[in-house]
């Protein structure tokens, strides 16, 4: 038991938890914005998979992580255009169309990987970027200020998104469109465009999340995300549709994952029992969903409801 604790509460575990939280955080922040505008995007995992594959492939070709990240965002934006068309123009049932996008991403990323790469080859991973002074703080410095650039970017997105949603005209429109689209529409706010932009940003972030994951691991494989995209959606509920809540949830997931990894490395959990530790995040999510279910007031009122003028 003490072994479990000493392995768990180390700076290394914590630091790796912060790093592992990044894909969850990026995807969940994107989903938060989408849901605030009233659109549930269940396709996050598929977008992440395609983003991950294309950025992996781009890094393999160019050996440039920056190109890889940009490609990830680009893939997300392209799929965002598709999803915006499906949900906003065709007003498709969001709970199902997202599953279609997921299947598409799952199949296509595996197909292209087989065709273009075949045998997995590792790619170069992120460089660490220690923040001067702050990274010198004992313990705290290593936990928070000695990571790759993307970790900082994703963390800065939290206050950024909060400000965007709460303090800008666009954010006001987003909230209005997500709560009472009829009212927003009557005031001349374009429900369609507002939602489309939110979907685009959200999918771009999902693509980036996939890129972050592939580059962090340095490899691509079939179903690389293993449902991280779905957990990211759950994190939005977990965080009660607020970026600050979402970051707390993401960090919790990163920490659970890194702790489990450390246990495995230390040989504390072996063989078949490791299944239970892998199961932990999913169980945790279910518990979180039960707890959060009582707070339905926080949910955007028009979530999953397509908007038709005059209804």
């Amino acid at each position, binding site marked *: 038991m003490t072994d479990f604790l000493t392995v768990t509460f180390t700076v290394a575990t914590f630091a790796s938890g912060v790093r592992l939280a990044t894909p969850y955080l990026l995807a969940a922040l994107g989903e938060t914005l989408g849901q605030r505008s009233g659109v549930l995007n*269940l396709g996050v995992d*598929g977008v992440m998979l395609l983003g991950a594959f294309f950025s992996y492939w781009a890094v393999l070709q160019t050996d440039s992580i920056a190109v890889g990240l940009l490609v990830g965002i680009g893939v997300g934006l392209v799929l965002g255009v*598709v999803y915006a*068309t*499906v949900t906003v123009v*065709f*007003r*498709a*049932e969001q*709970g*199902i*169309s997202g*599953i*279609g*996008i*997921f*299947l*598409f*991403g*799952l*199949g*296509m990323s*595996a*197909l292209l990987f*087989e*065709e273009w790469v075949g045998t997995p080859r590792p790619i170069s991973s992120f460089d660490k970027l220690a923040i001067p002074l702050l990274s010198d703080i004992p313990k705290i410095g290593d936990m928070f200020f000695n990571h790759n650039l993307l970790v900082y970017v994703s963390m800065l997105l939290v206050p950024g998104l909060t400000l965007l949603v709460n303090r800008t005209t666009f954010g006001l429109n987003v909230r209005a469109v997500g709560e009472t689209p009829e009212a927003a529409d009557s005031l001349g706010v374009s429900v369609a465009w507002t939602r489309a932009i939110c979907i685009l940003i959200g999918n771009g972030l999902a693509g980036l999340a996939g890129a972050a994951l592939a580059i962090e691991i340095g490899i691509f494989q*079939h*179903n690389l995300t293993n*449902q991280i995209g*779905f*957990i990211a*959606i*759950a994190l939005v*509920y977990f965080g009660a549709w607020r970026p600050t809540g979402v970051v707390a949830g993401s960090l919790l997931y990163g920490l659970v994952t890194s702790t489990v990894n450390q246990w495995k490395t230390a040989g504390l959990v072996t*063989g*078949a*029992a490791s*299944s*239970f530790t*892998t*199961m932990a*995040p*999913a*169980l945790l*999510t*279910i518990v979180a*969903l*039960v707890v959060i*279910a*009582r707070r*339905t007031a926080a949910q955007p009122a028009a979530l999953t*409801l*397509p908007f*038709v003028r005059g*209804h």
Partner: protein
Amino acid sequence: MLAGRRARSRRATLARLGGISVGGSAVILALLIGAAMILGLGANPLEGYGELLKGAFGGTEELAESAAKAMPLLFVGTGICVAFRAKVINIGGEGQIIAGGLLSTMTALAVPDLPAIILIPLVLFMGLVGGAIWGGIPGALKAYLGVNEILSTIMLNLVAVQLFNYLLRAPLMDPKQIELGTRIPQTRRLSENADLPILIEGTRFHLGVVVALIAAAVAWFFLWRTTTGYRVRAVGASAPAARYAGMPVKRMTMLALTISGALGGLAGACLVFGSETHRLQTEGFATGFTGSAGFNGIVAALFGGLHPLFTIPSSFLFGGLLVGANAMQRVIQIPVDLVIGLNGLIVVFVVSSNTLRERLSRYMSIAGEAAEHEEVGGHQAPVVDEAGPSEPTDAPDGGDDPVRTLESEP
């Protein structure tokens, strides 16, 4: 009255034909995109699709193989029909298949010596129970605690996979694997008394396929010929109206997901005992065992207009696509994953075509009925209505309009 009914059923048939043509266009569009991709990958799409068709429907053996592949899709798809009619979205097919497979396997390991006539029904029943548990949990969570069933079913998929991995790596592992030290995560060959009999000699057409067909028929009977099924649909069409009529809305919601899960569980049991190896094994992921039927079943159900009987040909089509994809891979070296991706596109196209379908059905002069129905259902028409090829209340086999009949109920 009779004439009105006949006219209505004629309109419904027209609308259904319209719906099928929209669904057919979705498949054709997806296949065209697939062809462009095959071309882009440097292979011949005509040759590929030719192999696909031949591999899927080219002969008795191929047809039987397609039917066997369609079996889990039909089970899951039928379950999806029941759930979606109650406006419950069940994404947990994968987990439910695994739960059914595990419980039926454990049963066969526990009582291997029972005669086949008892053991086969028993393992199938235990599969059903396993799936029902795995569907009942999110059902109860949704009905009584308001937990979003989409997310909880997805999470239960992950839990089921890990439970599956654990059980096959430890307590259920073949003793021979432990003895030899190879430790392949699989059970020993399960009792021969539990083997699902092959019904067409020399093919893989086993009893499970027939059970799936029966399940679809029973689901149709349940939904349109029983009071409980009627209540399930009424809850899906309008929960407030159903509540106002004194129906147990929560119980119906839970029931729909439980039935949906039970059908997935049956698929799991049939997959184990109808398999060629007659053992349960894991590759670490769900797909190895389920063949992604939990997701592909959704595609089949949507394509079948969320109607259990129409899901039969639809499942057969998608089963065939999957079987044919293997043949295609052998000849033009395009991985089977293409079909999974195309299935995703088909889902997107089918659900996107609702707006188109609405216009189509209005064109076919059922506007009056549709509008009347929408008024009752509120501004957001229930998913069951939108995704079906026709208004479910207009279906020839389910002519009772939930709202109109509501008033005549005591």
